């Protein structure tokens, strides 16, 4: 029997420009959104997704043909795509929307579906959620729209040479769950999948020369009109300062007062 011809895998990695993890979030004056005039970076889960795609290529056991990073966002989202390219992705796709446009998960999933069908990707590695809206539903929706398998919340990913067998390890309550699938597949990344690399200077320079395709939603026949309306956004209740007690007895009586014992 002849050995199987190694299959070339095309990977799509969606990356979102979101408010930097380290920034303190403030509710905007309209009470319906947050102040976005702050530092933005790549959504940390997406960074893990980019890293995983690059590691798959580095492992050599998987023949990766192309890694494409895609972002839907304002003009500045191109920085997020460049970061992915500097980490090691090959090409970028940017669907440009006006500043402060809300793109709901279903719209993102529809856009990704369109791109995937046009460009023939067979593996999507994406963050399990974005840290700004915390929806965590795009991956699942995309799998549903495409009728593909999905390995959600992956903490480990193994692919054999021809992509005929993929093992996704998921962290579940009290242990690990392993699921097996074939391509095409959607993988969503969990925190412990990997530790993303730094963008090195030589790669940052190379990334400047890599190609980024740009589209407007209408070019692709997409409609991003939101289906939901945000009624209000509020800050969590401020923590009350604690007090000091002099003795164990006082502590006990205070706890009784509070009705906790």
């Amino acid at each position: 029997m002849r050995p199987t011809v190694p299959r070339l895998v095309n990977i799509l990695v969606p990356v979102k420009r979101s408010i930097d993890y380290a920034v303190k979030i403030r509710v905007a004056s309209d009470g319906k959104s947050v102040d976005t005039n702050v530092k933005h970076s790549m959504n940390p889960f997406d960074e893990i997704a980019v890293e995983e795609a690059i590691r798959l290529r580095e492992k050599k056991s998987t023949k990766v043909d192309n890694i494409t990073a895609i972002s839907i966002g304002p003009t500045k989202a191109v920085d997020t795509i460049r970061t992915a390219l500097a980490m090691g992705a090959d090409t970028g796709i940017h669907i440009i929307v006006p500043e402060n446009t809300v793109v709901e998960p279903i719209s993102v999933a529809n856009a990704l579906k369109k791109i995937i069908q046009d460009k023939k990707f067979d593996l999507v590695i994406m963050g399990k959620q974005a840290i700004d809206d915390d929806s965590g539903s795009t991956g699942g929706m995309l799998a549903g729209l495409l009728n593909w398998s999905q390995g959600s919340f992956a903490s480990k990913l193994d692919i054999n040479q021809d992509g005929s067998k993929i093992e996704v390890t998921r962290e579940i309550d009290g242990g690990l769950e392993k699921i097996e699938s074939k391509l095409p597949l959607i993988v969503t990344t969990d925190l412990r999948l990997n530790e993303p690399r730094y963008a090195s200077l030589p790669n940052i320079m190379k990334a400047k020369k890599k190609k980024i395709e740009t589209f407007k939603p209408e070019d692709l026949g997409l409609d991003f009109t939101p289906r939901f309306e945000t009624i209000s956004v509020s800050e969590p209740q401020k923590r009350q300062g604690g007090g000091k007690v002099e003795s164990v007895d006082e502590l006990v009586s205070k706890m009784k007062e509070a009705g906790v014992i």
Partner: protein
Amino acid sequence: MSAPRQITRLASRAISRRASPLGNGIIRNQRSSILSPCQSSSSSSNQYQVKGLSVRYGSHLPERSPNFVKPTEKHLNDLKKIVSSSLSSLDGTATQEELKSFNDDWMNKYHGNSKIVLKPKTTKEVSEIMKYCYQNDLAVVPQGGNTGLVGGSNPVHDEIILNLSNMNKIRSFDQVSGCLVADGGVVLEAADHYLAEKGFIFPLDLGAKGSCHIGGNVATNAGGLRLLRYGSLHGTVLGLEVVLPDGTIWNGLSKLRKDNTGFDIKQLFIGSEGTIGIITAVSIMCPRRPSAMNVAVFSLESYEAVQKVFAEAKGHLGEILSAFEFFDKQSYALVKHHQEENGEAERKVFETEGDFYCLIETGGSNAEHDEAKLTGLLEHLMENEMVLDGVLAQDSTQFQALWKLRELVPESAGKAGSVYKYDVSVPVAKMYEPVEQLRVKLREGGVLEGDGKMEGPIKAVTGYGHIGDGNIHINIVATKYTDEIEKIIEPYVYEVVSKYDGSISAEHGLGVMKAPYIGYSKNQTSIELMKKVKQMFDPKGLLNPYKYIV
């Protein structure tokens, strides 16, 4: 917004990059002019050696002066009528054990034996205390956050501790000029947080920011991480309110940037280490907070390359360059080892490692503008092969992580063994020389086997610091402190520094530790003048005795 990565790498955020109490940039005593030393190196070892004085451990310290009256319960009772809060083992408000945190320094090198801690709330209280102590010949040691590295804020014997932590109010802030007036006991980080909300920044930042007081910072002329950008406190401090040793309140809380009317008295108090007055309030000019920050770290093949990159960085980045730090491969090895032990080193930083590393930070008001400048520099450095490799932080988390490579050096050295620390400033071109000469000397002495081989009596000799300020920290990591090693290092290290017209204490000050060695950095005329100043302000020598100039 959720916090998905809190568990692993983002947890580092909780430990702010400058919050490490072990930052070696803690207390700086910057001297603007370095006068050539008055001694020849052959006679120096005897000239400045105080008999029986082991500066390292603080175990053999200057003897108690008979001129000072021993504080008694009567004194305490009198003082309690003046001061709003006190702690003492004489009246049972505290045990001697509980006073340890005031008597000892944080490194546990210096141990005082004071029985009285006074915590005044107002300038008037400080003044009354000093008046009383002056009349009764009681020695006093002023104390801020007690984060110094040279034993300057701890009593040597039984001096009354005057702790300023209850003087912690911001007095005023001018949104237009950026002039902040605050009590001396305001914690540096608290002042910076206050300013951050108003879009301003405190022009000083250092490892101990969470504990140190701005009054103490001024008294010790602390330097730290923003000096390159904002200059020393001699430039940013506009005015001071000081209680003199006899209790007189000197109100010099000017808010003026320009004032050419007579001697600039406040300058004398900046860096006086509490020997001529107690700083009760500070008026300081604060710049606007940069809204865009970037950080890049490079690996380089030689110290010459570090200097070249420094020159290029200044040329390309101009006013947005806010820090230029360097560390050698021995320092980096210590940090990597330390991070591995803590399970924090999963990220590989460099493809190509080098003998030296440097960190550049930029801070500006326009992200695009800064990025264009920084990219220009990076392209230039790569094209001309001036650096071996490098990384540029892509988000705030990476920003913190890259800073940690530099900031963890002192902590990593401390974890690896007993550390001999020297904080010297030398002209930039010769800055790394003392480290290399010490290596040679230690190898000749048979105590250093390899470079950072982590075995033998000395595990590593490391150099790191603030290139922009010509300030290098030399950390010699030994298996344990021994007289043999100390004899090889001291006073050799001071001789080398003196040879290059450097300063034996760039930012840590003199305190108890370096007081005997001032002659390596200051000539006899300077020392005489300093003594006259001390004599004029404090004829009885009651304030912070046994230190600074002895």
